[in-house]
């Protein structure tokens, strides 16, 4: 059997297994388990798309929270019914035509991605005039601008009150469907000539230019694709937690994503997937440390925020002992899995 056929078959089998697992959880899982699985999928989408810019292009972009916000608000405003909107917007009414539009969830997700992409395009011109720390600051600023605008533009976002009572459309099938699609297309992209051009820019921008690669076009491409999937994931997130407000999408979210891709390995899609899954699961599992603990002889009071302390410690340990993250820049591929299996059987 040819390796490419074998790999395709293996991927199909893996997806089928994933589908069965999701089906079982959907039927018999507790609400809590389903929520963790949904979170996992959304964080996988976010991390993999963020990694395209930060890991593969080597650009320190600190504003994915802006695109997630834009996606979340866009899709929420599009799925709410006109009556719900009238009830929610008590201080200032929502502007026309958003006040009367209602579209299916799928359409709202695409609209979320497209809107985020348009915003990304608009800011890309100032962003890519600079590099390094300066670029980080410009994108960081953009994230803040969007958050402040969400607070201020009451007739569009309902200000600090946010949007409440969204229909929980985000099922396991939606979140995992988007995650699988994102991972597949981004993997294909980074393994193509476009991906090589992006990596070349990361390695040496001057040499890349001399070999005929236009840095602006390729950084823009990565930035827009990343923004699109961040926007879609924002839409999924909004319809998972059903309440969104400007405080939900601060720099803190970007910080978490940064931890995920650094721990996973900058420039490794499989690393981003593994780290995102661990993060979503760990975030819940480590809730224990924030609740009061009875150790028999002494009772520790619950300390809110303890999880973040633990996460930071994990990050430091990873940076100290595995500087390039779990995966470095290598990928888990079927070829590697089979090579490892062959070694096992020989030994």
């Amino acid at each position, binding site marked *: 059997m040819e390796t490419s056929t074998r790999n395709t078959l293996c991927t199909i089998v893996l997806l089928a297994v994933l589908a069965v697992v999701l089906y079982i959880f959907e039927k018999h899982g507790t609400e809590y388990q389903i929520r963790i699985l949904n979170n996992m999928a959304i964080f996988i989408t976010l991390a993999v798309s963020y990694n395209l810019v930060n890991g593969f292009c080597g650009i320190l972009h600190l504003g994915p929270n802006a695109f997630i916000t834009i996606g979340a608000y866009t899709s929420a405003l599009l799925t709410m019914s006109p009556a719900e909107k009238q009830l929610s917007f008590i201080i200032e009414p929502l502007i026309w035509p958003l006040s009367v539009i209602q579209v299916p969830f799928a359409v709202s997700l695409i609209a979320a991605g497209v809107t985020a992409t348009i915003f990304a395009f608009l800011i890309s011109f100032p962003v890519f005039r600079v590099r390094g720390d300066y670029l980080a600051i410009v994108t960081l600023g953009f994230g803040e601008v969007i958050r402040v605008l969400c607070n201020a533009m009451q007739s569009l976002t309902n200000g600090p009150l946010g949007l409440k009572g969204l229909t929980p459309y985000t099922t396991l099938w939606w979140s995992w469907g988007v995650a699988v699609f994102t991972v597949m*297309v*981004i993997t*294909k*992209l980074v393994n*193509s*000539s*476009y*991906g*090589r*051009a992006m*990596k*070349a820019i990361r*390695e*040496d921008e*001057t*040499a*890349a*230019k*001399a*070999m*005929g*690669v*236009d*840095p602006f076009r390729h950084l823009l*491409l990565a930035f827009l*694709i990343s923004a699109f999937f961040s926007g879609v994931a924002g839409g999924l997130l909004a319809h998972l937690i059903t309440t969104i407000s400007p405080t939900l999408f601060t720099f803190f979210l970007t910080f978490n994503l940064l931890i995920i891709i650094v721990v996973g390995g900058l420039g490794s899609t499989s690393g981003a997937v593994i780290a995102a899954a661990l993060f979503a699961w760990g975030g819940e599992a480590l809730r224990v440390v924030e609740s009061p603990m009875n150790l028999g002889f002494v009772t520790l009071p619950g300390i809110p925020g303890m999880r973040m302390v633990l996460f930071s410690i994990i990050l430091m340990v990873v940076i100290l002992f595995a500087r390039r993250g779990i995966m470095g*820049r290598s990928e888990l591929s079927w070829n590697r899995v089979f090579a490892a299996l062959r070694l096992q059987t020989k030994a």
Partner: protein
Amino acid sequence: MSDFFRLDNLGMQFGGLTAVKDFSIAIDPGELVGLIGPNGAGKTTVFNMITGFLTPTFGKVLWQGRDITGWPPHTITAQGIARTFQNIRLFADMTVLENVMVSFHHTLRSRFWKAMLGLPSHKREERRIETEARDFLEELHLGHLADEKAGSLPYGQQRRLEIARALAARPKLLLLDEPAAGMNPQETMELARLVREIRDRHRLTIFLIEHDMKFVMGLCERIKVLDYGITIAEGTPAEIQRHPDVIKAYLGEPKHA
């Protein structure tokens, strides 16, 4: 005068410092021309102006009848001028094969969404690129190293890879910036043979900077000498070797007792 490649009174000023002044040259197709001069004479600046990394303060770069002065580097490469760098600039964390494949990107026809969806037409193009890239590696005797990381190669092979990568961009004019720097005499001799070979096989025109006099004198058909940004001599290797200004620039004024 030739319409193939011409520099007209090229000049570069950084603030008050004149790095290059009134640099003119015309190169015919198939020529092998050398540019020499002491350190800091402005040789690399000339290359940077040709390839668009610097916009000349004065003068013009004419390429196949077109004025390409100040065009962005990637466009100039797509027009058929490729270069190597004095200090090696490989994509260190990518494989040897990938390094060469990057140079094909500007010839890629399929759009990014075809790549993302893995459409057959794109896969065909990828396969073509890989085969042709491997041919370039074979040509420079790097075929067996295709899957190694470029940064892990020994120095001499890194230099050869730089040439392979530049060749893969399909230039008509190849600019080599000190290709023999850091090589031993044996390697330098092999490099001279290689440069001549690739020129003949790919019908290239080559313009090169080099410090190694033996290398330049043996290889180039015509030499230009720069000192402090000014052209002090031009001619065949034999003429250059006898030229009093060149001897002065390299060895200093004879002391009068």
